[in-house]
């Protein structure tokens, strides 16, 4: 149960590992319909998060998430940097200064992250972006959180599963936001790299929480 600051830090380390493992895959996905940097961008950001955490782990879950947010904003660049950065920042704000997070807090943090991403990027469902992974993830998390006896792991697992499905659902879509939109019809038939990274990260967080 990773709900303390250390638990969140461990979950972010797990996410960093998954991002590193999938760096080339994300580059290749972005190469097909973008500019071939998404894996490099995300990996640069998460490597920086881990090295920050190696220095010291902030005292609360919210502070850890905020550290992740500012690191992503200042290290990733591209579209993903501000979008993920804003998402983590809103999640951090939503979590506040509590020393432990529960299922409700987690679900609310995910909702806040989604709202942040949408506020910054203006993407709606079906635009073939990370929103297509994050939006069903939030809905699933909220549903799980409302279930009797659910723990954080269960909530994140529900979110991760929904994100994975959501990511897959981007394949047939024609992109309307981000770099892939320049391709018009030619963007159909490819998995969106940002949706994939969202699913990967949520998957890692869920596994870490178990």
């Amino acid at each position, binding site marked *: 149960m990773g709900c303390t600051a250390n638990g969140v830090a461990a979950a972010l380390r797990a996410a960093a590992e998954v991002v590193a493992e999938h760096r080339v895959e994300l580059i290749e996905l972005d190469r097909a319909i973008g500019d071939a*940097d998404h894996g490099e961008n995300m990996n640069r950001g998460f490597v920086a998060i881990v090295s920050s955490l190696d220095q010291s782990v902030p005292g609360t879950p919210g502070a850890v998430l905020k550290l992740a947010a500012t690191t992503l904003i200042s290290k990733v*660049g591209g*579209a993903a*940097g501000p*979008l993920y950065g804003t998402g983590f920042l809103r999640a951090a704000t939503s979590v506040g200064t509590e020393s432990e997070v529960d299922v409700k807090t987690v679900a609310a943090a995910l909702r806040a992250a989604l709202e942040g991403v949408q506020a*910054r990027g203006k993407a709606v469902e079906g635009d073939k972006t990370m929103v297509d992974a994050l939006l069903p993830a939030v809905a699933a998390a909220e549903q799980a959180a409302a279930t009797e006896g659910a723990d954080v792991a269960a909530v994140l697992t529900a979110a991760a599963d929904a994100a994975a499905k959501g990511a897959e659902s981007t394949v047939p879509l024609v992109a309307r*936001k981000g770099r892939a939109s320049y391709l018009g019809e*030619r963007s159909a038939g490819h998995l969106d790299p940002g949706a994939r990274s969202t699913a990967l990260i949520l998957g890692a967080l869920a596994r870490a929480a178990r």
Partner: protein
Amino acid sequence: MKKIINDPEHVVTESLRGLAAAHADLLRVQYDPDVVIRADAPVAGKVAVISGGGSGHEPLHAGFVGPGMLDAAVPGAVFTSPTPDAVQAAVAATTGEAGALLIVKNYTGDVLNFETAAELAAAEGLEVRSVVIDDDVAVADSTFTAGRRGVGGTVLLEKIAGAAAARGDSLDAVEALAHKVIGQVRSIGVALTAPTVPHVGSPSFDLAEDEIEFGIGIHGEPGRERTKAEPADVLVERMVRAVAEDLPFTRGDRVLLFTNSMGGTPMIELYLAHGIAERLLAEQGITVERRLVGPYITSLEMQGISLTLLKLDDELTELWDAPVHTTALRWRA
């Protein structure tokens, strides 16, 4: 991949070291975050003109830092927009009372990162505005998409905004001029080969030996349409038509024609294409009054060219002609 680099991760910073060593008279480089700053910045009383974006498009933007053009350039990782703290560092090093204009190419990443930086700068009491250039006619425009990309027009915009700031225009005036330029500049690009991003190690897309990408972007994003290679006469005519019909440019217009190499195209081909474009425009009664020919906004080693047309009037022509002293553009200085 064969490149003259060490570790792909440090390629931008190591390249900036060479730039700094070569042009200490013109610029200085701050590292981590990496920013290229005009040697004599901040220039008292002058609006700072700042641009930036992913690296790999050199000389854009760092090659345009200097008197008469940019006060600072913010280079991101290769093909990746820079982060807000880097933009902020550029603002901090160059911006005084007169404020700053950020010139942003219309890509989601650039827009978001520069937007965040502008907010942070405003929070520190600096007057910072940004303009977004989106001159690429290859991309269908719509408020429901990311819109058109910023490409070749950026070079012309940076020169003209820089000249306006140099002559002492206010931030309002420089911003208004920038919007005017953005309103009357259009570009189209074509690629014969793909660039190879250092950290990727293989070409950004695959093109058959007889294929070209029409409407290519500058990041190795595949273009709008893949077609068969064509003789220069046919290809350049398609390009001129795409640009000239978009604004539309019409008989009697005075224009600046910018024939740009994407990096890997030899000058002999570039001038050949330029000559065709000049001829076609003359046939349409459009007067080419100024021209720029060379590799100014590139996509690493990609072979290809872009054509940019800017509608001129007396003021824009005068600002274009004004002295400029940067590593890549220099005249009357």
